[in-house]
């Protein structure tokens, strides 16, 4: 029998941490900082609204684009919060999570052989989605020296005549880095000079701790060439509902909508109902969760620095990204040994691409009790390593 698996499916990399996952499943008493999802349940008002809608029999397909009331609420909020105006009838698509939004956005702009620049370290699906769309992912490193922000010069180094689009994600998974308006301006110049499309995944936008989130589309003339991806999973603790959205100028949105129609029909109706209820009435719950993440961030960053793992203060998302330089271990070795010896699960930074090696992703969307215990275990583990190497002293807890 011939090999029926496609070249594309064969060549995209499998999940880099599958091995850990299998190992963790066999162990007791593991504290996992490996999970990129809130430990909270969805705000009760959203759940309650959804249950009511289900009782009323709201179980059908919605329009391809999504519930009109949800599209309108999304565009109203963007206009109110950021002065960013989109037409709810032509420039918004409710997607099945940001994952689907990303996939259809990439497919909407990528021709075979097109190069799609991906700012890394990044969420693991960007590269493979580009490959599946027939494009060529080109990583652009965001490095610790730049506090993991995307530097225009580093971007320029990777731009070629075949460059078609740039994918960015700020606040960033896995580094927690945030781009200010002036940082984005530098990127906007490159994007405009080289006539690129910007795909901006802003799913952690609500989780900005030091300053309000700046959507890419608000910078210069970027709105006309930006597909903004966002969703409810992180800010509203709604990962399992699978609801996100995409905003783009009508021409790009139309292209993405065609793909969405064929592959997805519509996002889950019940999820859309819950998302609408969340936007309407769970803002206070969302703000309380964001405030709690900020406190946990301070707790984990102080603890990691105390343990001797230099950790910059992440300004957004819910990940700390400490360096393990000086421990004498690679990030994969560190994560494996930490799991085996102290039963704390973290994700090695190299999983997230260029610029991630030598770091660990520690998700702090876990209870403070677990977080404190995890930090104690990490401290003990690093202290035990000191026979092999001397840890780098902790960096001070500062924001600049």
């Amino acid at each position, binding site marked *: 029998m011939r090999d029926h698996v496609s070249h594309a499916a064969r060549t995209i990399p499998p999940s880099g941490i599958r091995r850990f996952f299998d190992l963790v499943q066999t162990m007791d008493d593991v504290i996992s900082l490996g999970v990129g999802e809130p430990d909270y349940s969805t705000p009760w008002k959203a759940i309650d609204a959804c249950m009511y809608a289900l009782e009323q029999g709201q179980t059908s397909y919605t329009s391809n684009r999504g519930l009109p009331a949800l599209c309108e609420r999304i565009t109203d909020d963007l206009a109110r919060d950021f002065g960013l105006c989109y037409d709810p009838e032509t420039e918004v698509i409710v997607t099945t999570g940001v994952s689907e939004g990303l996939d259809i956005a990439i497919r909407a702009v990528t021709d075979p052989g097109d190069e799609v620049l991906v700012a890394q370290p990044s969420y693991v699906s960007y590269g493979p989605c580009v490959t599946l769309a027939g494009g060529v992912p080109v990583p652009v490193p965001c490095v610790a020296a730049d506090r993991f922000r995307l530097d225009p010069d580093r971007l320029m180094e990777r731009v070629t005549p075949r460059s078609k689009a740039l994918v960015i994600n700020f606040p960033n998974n896995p580094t927690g880095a945030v781009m200010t308006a002036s940082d984005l301006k530098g990127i906007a110049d490159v994007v405009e000079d080289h006539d690129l499309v910007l795909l901006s995944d802003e799913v952690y936008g609500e989780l900005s701790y030091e300053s309000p989130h700046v959507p890419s589309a608000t910078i210069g003339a970027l709105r006309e060439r930006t597909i903004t991806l966002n969703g409810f999973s992180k800010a509203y603790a709604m990962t399992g509902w699978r609801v996100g959205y995409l905003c783009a100028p009508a021409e790009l949105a139309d292209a993405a909508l065609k793909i969405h129609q064929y592959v997805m029909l519509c996002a889950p109706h019940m999820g859309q109902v819950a998302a609408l209820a969340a936007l309407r009435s769970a803002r206070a719950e969302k703000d309380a969760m964001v405030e709690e993440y900020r406190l946990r961030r301070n707790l984990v960053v102080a603890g990691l620095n105390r343990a001797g793992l230099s950790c910059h203060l992440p300004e957004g998302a819910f990940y700390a990204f400490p360096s393990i330089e000086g421990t004498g271990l690679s990030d994969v070795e560190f994560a494996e040994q930490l799991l085996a010896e102290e039963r704390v699960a973290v994700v090695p930074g190299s999983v997230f691409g260029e610029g991630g090696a030598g770091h660990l992703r520690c998700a702090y969307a876990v209870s*403070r009790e677990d977080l404190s215990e995890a930090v104690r275990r990490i401290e003990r583990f690093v202290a035990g390593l000191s026979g092999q190497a001397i840890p780098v002293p902790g960096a001070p807890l500062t924001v600049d």
Partner: protein
Amino acid sequence: MDETDTTLVRLLEENSRIPTVELAAMLNLPAAEVEERVRALQVAGVIRRFTAIVDRARTDDGGVAAILELKVSPERDHGYDRIAERIARFDEVRSVRLITGTYDLHVLVAGTDMQEIARFVSEHIAPMERIRETATHIIMKSYKENGTLLFSRESGGERQPFSF
């Protein structure tokens, strides 16, 4: 009270046993300053007491509690204050609140059994001057106290130990 105090109060209200070092890390303050702020909040009467939330259904002491609603004639110059304070002084009374609506005072009373509560209300509360009417509601079951759910959820919504 500044923003830091507000956060501190919220954190302690949720869990009064958080170690000072953790509060200090979360608030990005020296531990000594956290202790000083807590002391100042106590002196100012913002924080009255550090206590525990107890699920009475699990203490096996057979205790009961009731909500009393009272219609009260207010006094010239004092309004409801003096009578509310008199009621509040009984050990059996757990809380006293002035409310809007049909009744004026909302009182939570705890006792060892139903008879004790009945006796307390009829002997000490109802005969008080200025109390025009009482309605006593025995609490059958408590589902949430001071922001704490007293029932366990069917499942904690188990999360996979890894995800991207």
